[in-house]
């Protein structure tokens, strides 16, 4: 069984630029999560999808972050414009009513 796929693995941008991350969950997993992991901290949930609907986005900075999950499968997380404090690893996870399976993450550096 293929795991959660994420791309790119690394991204370096200047502040005020835009960036997008892609996630492909495990086939058949209805729930998809995006986490932000700042260096030295544990992951923090940004948004949770159930199929293509948003379950919880209370911790998503909506003035600059957006996410979508078209057709209830792949998901894209976008930051526009990026700030220095957005430097972090962005993790995607999926589940089917139980254990969450994580992707390898995207390391974002904002200069």
């Amino acid at each position: 069984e293929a795991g959660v796929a994420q791309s790119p693995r690394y991204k370096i941008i200047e502040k005020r630029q835009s960036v997008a991350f892609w996630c492909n969950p495990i086939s058949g997993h209805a729930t998809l999560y995006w986490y932000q992991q700042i260096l030295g901290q544990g992951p923090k949930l940004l948004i949770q999808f159930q199929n293509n609907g948003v379950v919880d986005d209370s911790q998503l900075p909506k003035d600059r972050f957006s996410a979508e999950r078209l057709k209830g499968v792949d998901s894209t997380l976008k930051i526009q414009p990026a700030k220095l404090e957005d430097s972090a690893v962005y993790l995607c996870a999926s589940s089917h009513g139980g254990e969450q399976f994580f992707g390898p993450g995207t390391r974002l550096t904002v200069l």
Partner: protein
Amino acid sequence: AQTVTQSQPEMSVQEAETVTLSCTYDTSESDYYLFWYKQPPSRQMILVIRQEAYKQQNATENRFSVNFQKAAKSFSLKISDSQLGDAAMYFCAGEYSGAGSYQLTFGKGTKLSVIP
């Protein structure tokens, strides 16, 4: 609000020895799960062990076991016969019902080094 606290930023253990990582949590929920995740330098979060709050028996997975003290809200991880491959960041996490669906709250992590 749910909180998870790991008070040991770093720990080290000699190969083949035993080490215990500490975790405390706080929640008003009665139905929840607790987890230990391992995150090696590759950044992939890997589930090590899980514990259902309603179960009194401590979970075990091969060399990994937990000491779950529900009244004290304590959930420590014991790694026996430590191996070089155990070196990683370890995160304690709680899964509580929120907004109608279970969500993970993580601690800040403990960096485990294994000394040959």
